[in-house]
Structure formats: C-alpha cells, structure tokens
C-alpha cells in the first residue's frame, strides 16, 4: 500500500501532499523535509528507488516537478513508477499540457483527480478514460458562472519551466 505521495518542485516547494496513513502534522512536516532533501540531492541518472526508514521511496522527475511515493516493503516499485506516470498523464489530459502552475493554481483539481485514481493508497481505477469521465461529470455538475481562464497565468508568470506531456518533450528527460 502506498503510504503517501508528495509532489515538490526543484526548489523544494511542496505542491501536493497525500497521506494514506494517519500521521501528526509535525511528523508529516518532518518526513517531507527529510525526503525532499534526500531526493533533491540525488543525481539525474540515479535509480528511481531508495530505501528510506522501513519504506521504499519511488520517485520520478517530470520537468520542474518531482513525484515521490512511499510504498511498503512488499510493494512493487516498477508498478508504482507507472502509477506516477499515469497520474501525470491524467493531469496532462485534464489540464491540457499540464505544467507546475496548473497544479499550483488548481491544486484542488489535482487532489480530486488523485482521489479518483488512488484511494486509501491503492489503485482504484487505472483506466484513463474512466477517471477523466468521473472528473468531467463532476465538472458538468458545477453551475457557477465565475469561470476563470487560468491558463493565462502560464503566459503571464515567467520563470517557470513548463512540463508538457507529449511524445518528444520533457517527459523523456528523466526516463
């Protein structure tokens, strides 16, 4: 079972945190600090797995963002790596060429998508179509007029590397 998933930037800013085991806020902060430091210190070609405490850490970098999961001893590292990838694909499909900013400004969406995909630390629905269908249905249910084109921020805010998920882009950089 996955114990938690963290998304953080190259600068060490936490962008998303999902905990599947009960921990105190203090403990969560400590773990985050420790792991962010450990993972950021690793060089690009190193392996994506490491032992940490009694857990296995599986991480992968997509452009400016690190996706980092902690799994238990008997869990499968490679399939976890693909859990990360599938999540990135889901974000990409939903936001359309997702970048770090999408996750910052629409953090709640990132959580919703994750909940449809993983629940209680286990894969709930691995079909991309089905997950997005669930999210879109939810979007259709909303009837607020205050719609905002968040995409403009991608243009207005400089200094952020965009990670785009298509065939020949950043995705392969760390693959």
């Amino acid at each position, binding site marked *: *079972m996955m114990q938690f998933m963290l998304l953080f930037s190259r600068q060490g800013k*936490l962008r998303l945190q999902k905990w*599947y085991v*009960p921990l105190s806020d203090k403990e969560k*902060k400590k773990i985050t600090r420790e792991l962010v430091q450990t993972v950021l210190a690793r*060089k690009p070609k*190193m*392996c*994506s*797995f*490491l*032992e940490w405490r*009694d857990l296995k850490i599986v991480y992968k970098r997509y452009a400016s963002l690190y996706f980092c999961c902690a799994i*238990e001893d*008997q869990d*499968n*590292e*490679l*399939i976890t*790596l*693909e859990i990360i*990838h*599938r999540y990135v694909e889901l974000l990409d*499909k*939903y*936001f*359309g060429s997702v970048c770090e900013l999408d996750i*910052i*400004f*629409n*953090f*709640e969406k990132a*959580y*919703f998508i994750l*909940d449809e995909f993983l*629940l*209680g630390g*286990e*894969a*709930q*629905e*691995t*079909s*991309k179509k089905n997950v997005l269908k*669930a999210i*879109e249905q*939810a*979007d259709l*249910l*909303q*009837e*607020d007029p*205050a*719609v*905002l*084109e968040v*995409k403009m*921020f991608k243009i207005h*805010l400089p200094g952020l590397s965009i990670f785009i998920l298509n065939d020949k882009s950043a995705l392969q950089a760390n*693959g």
Partner: protein
Amino acid sequence: MPAVSKGDGMRGLAVFISDIRNCKSKEAEIKRINKELANIRSKFKGDKALDGYSKKKYVCKLLFIFLLGHDIDFGHMEAVNLLSSNKYTEKQIGYLFISVLVNSNSELIRLINNAIKNDLASRNPTFMCLALHCIANVGSREMAEAFAGEIPRILVAGDTMDSVKQSAALCLLRLYKTSPDLVHMGEWTSRVVHLLNDQHMGVVTAAISLITCLSQKNPEEFKTCISLAVSRLSRIVSSASTDLQDYTYYFVPAPWLSVKLLRLLQCYPPPEDGAVKGRLVECLETILNKAQEPPKSKKVQHSNAKNAILFEAISLIIHYDSEPNLLVRACNQLGQFLQHRETNLRYLALESMCTLASSEFSHEAVKTHIETVINALKTERDVSVRQRAADLLYAMCDRSNAKQIVAEMLSYLETADYSIREEIVLKVAILAEKYAVDYSWYVDTILNLIRIAGDYVSEEVWYRVIQIVINRDDVQGYAAKTVFEALQAPACHENMVKVGGYILGEFGNLIAGDPRSSPLVQFNLLHSKFHLCSVPTRALLLSAYIKFINLFPETKSTIQEVLRSDSQIRNSDVELQQRAVEYLKLSSIASTDVLATVLEEMPPFPERESSILAKLKKKKGPGAVSVSELEDGKKEAGSEINGGGGAESAAAASNASTPSPSADLLGLRSGAAGIGSATGAGSLLVDVFSESGTAATASSGTDENFLSSTPSSALGSEDPAPALPESDELLHKFVCKNNGVLFENHLLQIGIKSEYRQNLGRMYLFFGNKTSMQFIGFSTTVTCPGELQSQLNIQTKPVEPLVEGGAQVQQVLNIECLSDFTEAPLLNIRFRYGGTLQNITLKLPITINKFFQPTEMASQDFFQRWKQLSQPQQEAQKIFKATHPMDSEVLKGKLLGLGTALLENVDPNPENFVCAGVIQTKALQVGCLLRLEPNAQAQMYRLTLRSSKESVSKRLCELVAEQF
C-alpha cells in the same frame, strides 16, 4: 482539452495564490497570509450570510494556506456547512477540506458523519463517491464506528454503480486497516471474493486490494479467492494487448491488476488443486517467456509495466520456493537484468536475487553471477545500487566463495560511502567468522577491517575476535605476531591498540622468544600508544601491563615504575587511578603463586551467538538479509566454532549490557573477587557469569559435583509420585512472575526466586521446614520427561539430606534452554517426617516465555511482521472468558511479566494490547507477536499469538490464556 475553462475557477483564489507567489520574502508571505486570514475571519463572522460560492472560495483559500504549511484554526464549521450544499463543487471543496484538516473534534465529527450519511443514502453515485472518498481519506475510528456496517452492503449490492463499488471496496480496506475489530465481513465474504469475477476491470482492481488484506488476516475464509485469482490472471496473461481496451497500458494488458493478483497469491501456499496449480505455472511461464520477446514499444512505460509483472511473478515463485525449474529461470532472468542499461532494473534484480540466494534450488544459480555483482559493487555510480550489491554478495556467500567475497568487500571498504561502511564492516566480520576454515585468515581479516575502517568497527567486532582467539589455541601465536606487527604502524587505530593490548597481555609470551619482540619491546610498543588513547583503552592497557608482570617477571620493575608515576597513580580519572594503585600493590605484595593464579590466562569464553549478528539485525540496514537467513547463518556459525572448541557452558561472557566492556572482557570481576575488592554490584546473573568463570579456572574437578538432572536418590527404590493434580495451576501462577511461593502444605513450604537472561536462567529453590522436627533423607530430583530432555538442560547440586525443624535449605538450578519446549520439568521431593515417607511431585515453573527478550518496535514494523507471520500454523488464537477483573493496569503488569515488550500506540484500538518478544533458545530464536483484545462488555478476551514456530505459538497461547 481545455478542461480548465469549464472548471470552476475562483478568481479571488487565483489572485490570492499569485499574490503569495509574488511575495519576495517569507515575511511578506506571512504578512499577506495574515491579512487574508483576518479578511476570511471577518467574512465568516460577519452579519451578512455568505453565499455558497464565497464560502467555498474562502474555505479553499484556508486549505491553500494550510497546505503552504501554516496552521489553520477556524473554518471547519464553514467547511462542514459546505458538505450539505446541493452544488457539487461546494460539496467537493467541503469534503476536501475535511479530508485534509479533520481533527477529532467530536462535535464536528458528528456533523460530518451526518452529512456523509445523507450522501451515502442519496443514491446519487457522484455524491456517494465523494462521501466514500472522505471516509477513506480520514479513516478515523469514529467513522469506522458509524459506517463499517453500511459499506459492505453498498459494496455487494446488485444495483450499486461500478464506480461506487470501487470506492466502497477501498474505503472498507482503509477502515479495516484502522479498526479491524469493527469490520465484519461474515456473510459478505463469498460475495466479496466473487468480485474477482466482476465484469468491470476497475471493480476487480479495487476489490482485490481489499481481498488481499482480508486474506492475510483470515486465510481460511478467503481461500476460494485462489482459483478465482488464477483464472483471472490466466485470462489477462493470455489476452492480446488490445483485448482489454483502456486497461491496456502501453501494450501491456492490465499491469496493475496483474501485479495485484500475483500479490494476492503470495498470501497462500501453492494451490492444492492440481489443475489450478498447472494453470498458474503456465501463467508464470508465459510471463517469463514474454520477458524474452522483443518489446512492443520502445517507451520505458511499456518495459516498466511488463517488468513490474515479471518481478511480481518472480516474487511469487520465490514465495512458493517449490518449483526448481521456475526458480532457475527466474534467476537467469534476473541475471540478464544485472547487466541491463536501466539502473532501475539492475537495482531490482540485485534486490530480488538476494531472496533467491536463500532458496536451496537457486542458491547455486545465483552464485554464478558473482563476478557481475562484484563488478556492480565496484562500478555502480549510485550508492543505493552498490548497497544492493553488497547485500547480495553477503547473501550468496558460502564456503566456496567466502574468501573472494570477503576480499572484495574489504577492498570496497577502502572507498565505500560513509553511509554504508558500518554495515559492510559487520557483514565482513560475520562472513569471516562464519566461513573461517583457518583462523589465521579470520584474524587477518578482522585486523584488516580495523586498519581500513577502524572508526566503523564497533565493539562487538573486536570483542568477537578476542573471544575467538582466546578459545582457539591454534591461532593465539599467530594473532600475537600479527597484532605486534600491526602495532608497528606509526598511526594505528585505537581499536587496534585495544585488540593488541588484550592479545599481547594474554599471549605475548608466545612471541617473546624472538628478540625482535622480546617482553620489553612488546611493552614499550604498547606503552608508546598509551598517551594517545582514550580512558577505556588506557584502562585496558593497564590490565595488560599487570598481566605482563605475571608473564614476564623481568618487566616488573619497568612496569611498576610506570604504574608508580604521578600520571598513573594520581590520574584524575578514578578508574585509571584505582587500577594503577591496585595493580601496583598487587604486583608488590602478592607472591608469584598468587599472582599467577589471579592473572592466569583467561578461560575460554562460553560459546554464544555472535553479538555482531545481533547488531546487524538491529541495524537491519536497507535490504539487509532476511532474519531467517541470519538465523541460519548464526546456527552455522555456532556449530562451526563449537565443533572445534568443545567447551559449551551456560553463561554468556561479555554481555552486551555490561557497561564497562574492558572490565568485563578481562574478567576483572572474577579476578577482583579473588583479591578481595569485589564491587558487589553484581546481580544474580552477573554472579552466574563470574562463578562459572572462576569455576572453570579453578579446576575441572568441580565437574563431578555438577550432577546431571537425575541424581540417585538416597531413598532409591520408591518411584517418584505422580505430579500433584494442582501442579498445573501452580505452574500457571508463575508464568508472569519469577518469584513467590510455589507450594505449601502443613510440613513444607517451597519458595522460588529466579532470573533469566537470553537462553539461560538460574532458579533458587527454598525448602522450608515448617515443623519443629527434622526432615530425614531429604532429597530433590529434577527431571525432564520425554522430549524435554533434549530441550532443556538443568543442572543442580544435591541438597543436604537433613533439614532441621524450622530451617530452610536452598537449592540452585542452572537452566539452559536448548530449543523451544512445551512440557514443564518435574520436581520430586522426598523425605521422611516422623517415620512416614513424603513424596511430592510438582511441575517446576519453567515455561517457554521465561526466555523472552522484549523487542520494542514501531507500529509499522509490528504490523509488517504480523503480516509476515500470516500462515495459519503460525498463529494460535483463543477466545476466553475473563476470570479476573479486566483492569488494564493489571493486564499491563501481567503482559510485562510475561517478558515481552508491551508496545504502546501500535494497535489502533487503545483498548487492545500488543506485545513483541524473541524467545531465545540455544538452537534458534523465535520471534513472537501477541495481541490481546479485551471486550469489557462481554467480559471476554481474544488472544492471538503469532510466531515463526507453530509449537511456540500454541504453547504461549495456552500459557497466556490462563493468566487473565
């Protein structure tokens, strides 16, 4: 897809987020946040009722602030209000806030649960899913209490939507993990298992995680899942890559589900049904075959997904450990990965091979990859991969390749990363000892270790080399010569000085014939290091000096002068000063004979488990070798040394808990006792040690006093009486305590005091004559009936045959636990009182739990181990009625008395107790986990014992169940 435009953007939120991002400093950020918090607070407190949208926006802002790492202490109520909104997005934000920020505020929980209840009953699948996600995310006990009954029904109901079923399955899993006592599958079991057959792949994917977890806990009830899982797996494995549509991932059909299916099968032994087994073997073969096929895509996702299944299949093959053909194929496959260009695959191959190395079928196949692994150790650029390589070398080591592997590890040590040096040192030390055929190689290896990585050589390592040198006289001369040479180095590590001081002090005479290492040269060499050393080392050197005086009388005056110097005799350190003063006096007062006796060569150390192994186990560094493997290693190591030394005694010499290692190693305690300056601080068990030490030195003649367990009774002819009917009850009284009155009648009272450490114990029996007349022909016999003879070794001396009226006699039993046992030894007492023969037989309260060593562990470790011991025969369970009041303090006391560690904050239910301990026997150690679940209402307990040995679980369960 321009998804965002149809989203529900909140402009205010976006502006706030970009404000925060534009803050130049942490202070500015905090200022901006405080401003926002004040604003939100005033909005929430304001008279004007907020509309749903504003409420949602502010709650979302609070959530953002919290996720930035700031504390949030309000807004919970507004979030709860959102839960009952009809607008989906408002509800959704409310639930998200609750999921992230819930606290156990009881009033709030009630409101939240109410909202969840409404949504679950709404029959609107999106609402139901939101509610289920919230329960799964929070997973608190209160929620389990409220919903654990309802969710199984939702899960199996025919009209439940697929997406709701998926959420329900995983929601239930989470509740089961936090509050297993509240989730009762019972009647639903078979319908849940049949979800494996569901049409919808997503439902199967979600449900199988639940089934796996439940199977681990109740393997029998869920057994039917095996055949279902096999047929599902078979269908996936044989399907074409397009068959499963959206469940195909980069041309790999249903990788997540496949992995989960293979994982589920690892909860069980190989299928009994031949057809099922055949089908499964076929699947595994297909998976192995596919690994050889050309990839259908160049993308890493394709190979990862494919290999994820492959590794899981290999795990299953290793788990079964019964198909030699598959094991060897798995090993060959991993061998290919060892040289793969993907670092990830090399890492996993090394890791997986480590477990393969312990299977008898594949050990040899693993060994063929030794060169590759050594190369990995030398050339991998990633330390975590090198670590795996070191682990694998350790696991594949045996007599045939030990020298090579040890040499490679030693040379790696010179450049090894600091983070793994200590572990490598321990591994080298263990392998060198375990596979030492010639002990000079062993001595060389350890001294090399100290030379190369002295700072990482822990005390256990150098203690051990000394123990072995002392016990093996064929290596003593070599050791003395080697340390003498090593000490020539201008800068040598302090550990080298310790070993050198000790060994020269004992065996310097063996090389003293050579003028290059004459006594005085040896002394001067040692003393030249003295001033650079720490206090404990200096203390050790002083002891070496006094030993020199005994070994080489010609050094006496030189050494006395050193001892007499102000820097010694007035040293500000009390220990050093005392040694200097005492040794000086000893050397001047005592006659040569006395000196020779007091300073005699150390007696052989009683054989015991290498403390290095214990240390490695404790470290259990990344991927360290499995415990069972270490146990094997230990057994082998033990027999190895025993075979040569032969001296097997009950006591442990340099006990790890002794605070002053040098004192202990030198046997000063027994030496000091001889010259009358004993500290008297020894506990019962320390006495055991020192006594066995002196006993062994004094003479071997004492052996004849140590009658074995069946002394010929003075009264000879009569058979011992059968054990008293109440003897079992008396026995149970002592399970949780060590001292007390075992038996009393109108004539006799028998008291017991006992103490245990590791696999050893000492019991004092006090026989009190309650009458005013003599007991004549008083004799006691301890017998180990049947099997027990080979499981327990009890030694004692006969007692005086005459017990005066009102007097008490004492008898000491030395107990050694050889292997685990069930029966209790019998104590037969016979004497004549006023002409009538009294013949009483009791059970001696020596029970397996006495040899418990408590083990502290964190919750995760506990449950992980608990899971590892999930085979039915490893568990013993009893449900029984309370015979005493259920006072938790009393329960705690009893559980502690049992000898295990009582683990706090491990069981999610605070009413329950969990304990962990390791039973120490000479042959092996048995890890045991205990869980006691009191049910105060029913006045019942459920007691569950798990251990790696069936007989131990069973016996402990019987014993413990009698205590409450």
